[in-house]
C-alpha cells in the first residue's frame, strides 16, 4: 500500500467566473521510502500540491489517503496533529521564529506535542547535532547563515520523527554551497528510511531523487523514476533549454539577467567542480557580449 495516494485531486480558488484551477484532477501515489523531486514552472501547482500533501490545505475535490487513512476531509485540529506527528515541512523562506534560539525553534513541535521541557531540550539538541549545528544551539536565527538557518529548519522538521518530509523549494533562497549542504542533509534523511518530497527549480538537484515529477498548469505532465546521482532525463532536457532571459527579466532589467547568468554559472560550477564561480560567470558573460 502506498504511503500517499492522491486520486483526482483538484484545488480551486475563488468563485464563479473568477475561479482559478491550481490543481486539476491530479492522481499520484508515492511509496514509503521514495525521494521525489517535483519540478515545474511557477504557477504550475507545485506548492499547492505540497500544501495538500502536508495537510496544510484541503483539496476541493478528490481523495487523499495518507498511510491508509482518508484525510481529505479532516478538520483543522486533526490535521494539525497529523502535521505535528507524521509530517515535517521545510519552507523556502526557512520560517524560523526570530525571537527563539535555534534550540527553541527545533523544540517547537515537541512543545505542541506536550513534552516536558527537559525532554524537548534533549531531543532538539540531538537533532541539532545531527544536522551539524550542536555548537549553535543558543544562536538566534539572525546570527546564523542561510544554510545554517535551513539546517535548523530541517532539524525542526525531523524532531518528531515524521514518516514524511516535505520541502517546498528548500534551496530556493540559498547559494550553491548551502544548497548542497541542505540537499546532502535531505538525502541522508532519505537514506534512513524517510519518504522525502521536495520541490526544486534546479535540475541538478534531481540527482538526489529517486523519482522526478514534472508539473504544468496544475497537472502532472511527466513522471519518471531515476537513479540516485543521476539527473532526470526530462530535467536534463529542460536544463539545456533554460531561456536566456524571459519577458519578465527584460522588464526587470539588468539585475534579473545577472540572476539568470549567475544561476547558469552555478550549474557550470557544479558540473566543472573546479574553478571559481566568478571566473565561470565572467567567461560565460564574455562571449555573450
Amino acid at each position: 500500500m502506498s504511503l500517499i495516494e492522491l486520486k483526482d485531486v483538484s484545488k480551486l480558488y475563488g468563485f464563479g467566473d473568477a475561479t482559478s484551477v491550481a490543481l486539476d484532477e491530479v492522481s499520484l501515489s508515492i511509496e514509503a521510502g521514495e525521494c521525489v523531486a517535483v519540478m515545474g514552472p511557477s504557477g504550475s501547482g507545485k506548492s499547492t500540491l505540497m500544501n495538500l500533501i502536508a495537510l496544510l490545505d484541503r483539496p476541493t475535490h478528490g481523495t487523499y489517503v495518507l498511510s491508509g487513512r482518508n484525510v481529505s476531509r479532516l478538520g483543522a485540529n486533526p490535521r494539525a496533529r497529523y502535521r505535528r506527528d507524521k509530517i515535517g515541512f521545510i519552507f523556502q523562506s526557512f520560517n524560523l521564529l526570530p525571537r527563539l534560539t535555534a534550540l527553541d525553534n527545533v523544540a517547537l513541535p515537541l512543545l505542541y506535542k506536550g513534552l516536558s521541557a527537559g525532554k524537548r531540550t534533549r531531543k532538539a539538541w540531538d537533532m541539532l547535532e545531527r544536522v551539524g549545528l550542536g555548537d549553535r544551539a543558543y544562536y538566534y536565527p539572525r546570527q546564523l547563515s542561510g544554510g545554517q538557518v535551513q539546517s535548523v529548519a530541517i532539524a525542526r522538521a525531523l524532531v518528531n520523527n515524521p514518516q514524511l518530509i516535505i520541502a517546498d523549494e528548500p534551496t530556493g533562497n540559498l547559494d550553491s554551497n548551502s544548497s548542497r549542504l541542505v540537499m546532502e542533509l535531505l538525502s541522508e534523511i532519505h537514506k534512513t528510511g524517510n519518504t522525502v518530497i521536495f520541490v526544486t527549480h534546479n535540475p541538478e538537484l534531481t540527482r538526489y531523487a529517486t523519482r522526478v515529477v514534472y508539473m504544468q498548469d496544475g497537472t502532472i505532465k511527466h513522471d519518471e523514476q531515476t537513479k540516485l546521482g543521476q539527473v532526470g532525463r526530462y530535467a536534463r532536457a529542460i536544463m539545456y533549454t533554460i531561456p536566456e532571459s524571459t519577458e519578465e527579466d527584460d522588464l526587470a532589467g539588468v539585475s534579473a539577467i545577472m540572476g539568470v547568468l549567475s544561476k547558469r554559472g552555478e550549474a557550470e560550477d557544479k558540473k566543472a567542480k573546479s574553478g571559481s564561480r566568478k571566473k565561470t560567470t565572467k567567461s560565460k558573460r564574455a562571449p555573450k557580449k
Partner: protein
Amino acid sequence: MSLRNDNFKLAYQSLAAVKARSFLTMLGIVIGVMSVVLVVCIGQGIKEQITGQLGHFGKDVLSAVPASASTSQFSSLTGITGGGSTLLTSSDLQTVSNTPGVAGAVPLAVATGSVTGDHTVTSPFIVATNASFPDIINQSFQSGGFFDSGNGSRSIVLGATIAQKLFNNSSPLGQGLTWRGQRFLVAGVYNYFNAPPFSVEANFDDAVFVPYSAAQQISGGSLAIYQILARADNVRDSRQVVAAVRSALISAHGGAQDVTVAGASDSNSAPNQTIHLLTLLVGAAAVVALVVGGVGIMDVMLVSVTERMHEIGLRKAIGATNRQIMRQFMAEAFVLSAVGATLGVALSAACVGFIRAYTSIQAVLVWQIMVAAPIIAIAIGVFFGSMPALKAARKDPIEALRHE
C-alpha cells in the same frame, strides 16, 4: 502542563519584545483598577469619618429633636436649630427616660450670656445639660470630670478651646467663673473632640457645659430643650428603642408628629446614604474606565495578532492546534491584565497612604475591593483578549503564512 508554563513564558517574551506598547496597554488597566479602588477607599473613608463623628454619641445613642429642626436632615442629630415652632420640654425628657429600654436621657439646651473667667467671652456656646451627659457622650477629660447631679450644683465643664480663651495657660480646674452674675467652679475640661465637630454650629470644643437645673433657674424657667439624647440599654435592639421613644413622644404630644427620633447607628441616615450613592455613582464611572482598559487590551491584541500572523501560520503549520494558539494569546491577555491589575492595586494603596498623609480625607484600604477589582480587571482583560485570540486560532495556516 508544561505547555501552560510555556504559554506564560511565551506571553512574557512577546510582551517584552514590545515593551512600550505593552506598558501603554497595561496603563489602561492600571488606571481602571486605580480609579475603582480609590473611589471605594475614599468613599469608605469619608463614610467612616462621618459615622465616626456620629459615633461620639455611642452606637446605641438616639436623639429626639423637634420635627421642624429636622428639615435640615444633615443636622438632625447634632444641629442646633432651636428655631422650630415646638421645642422639647422637661416633661418630654421624663417621657423619654421612662420609655422601656432607655437607660438614660439628657437634655441639651442652649443658654445665653457672657462668661468671665480670667478673661471674658461675650457670647460663648453654652450648653445646659445634666450630670448623665458623660454616660452618653464618650469623651475623655484633660483634667477633672463632669459635674455632679444635684439641684444646687454650681459646677461647670469647659471645652478645650474655650478653656484656653478663658484662662490662657493656667489650669482652669477649680477656678471660679461668672455667668450672669452667678459664680461657678470649673469641675473639668474636656479634651479636644478628635473628629471634626458634630456640625459647624455645635462645636463642643467651644462649649461651656452648665447644669440644666441651674441654667433653668437663671433664665427663669424659660429654657427650652432643643434635643434630647438618650442611650438604649443593652437588652433591646436600639432600633426598637428608637421606635418606642418615637411612639411615646407622639402619644405624649397628643398624637402630633412633631418630634423626630433617630438612632446614631442608623445606617440609612441621610449622610451615609448620600455618601453611599455618590460612591456607587463614581464607582460606576470607574468601572467604565476599567472596561475601557479591557477594550484597550483587545485593540492591542488585535494589532498583535495581525502583526504576528506569519508566526501564527508557522506555529499551526508545525502542528499547533487551534486551542494551543488560542491559549497562547489568552495567556498574553492574562499577563497584561494581571500585571496591570497588580500595579493598579499597589499604586492605589500608595495613593491612599498619600491622601491620608497630606489631605484631611482619611481614606481607608478596603481589602474587599482591593481583591475584587483586580479579579474583575483580569476577567475583563481575558474576556476582551479572547476575541483576538479566537481570531488568531481560527486562521488558515496557509493564509497566515502568506502574511509577511
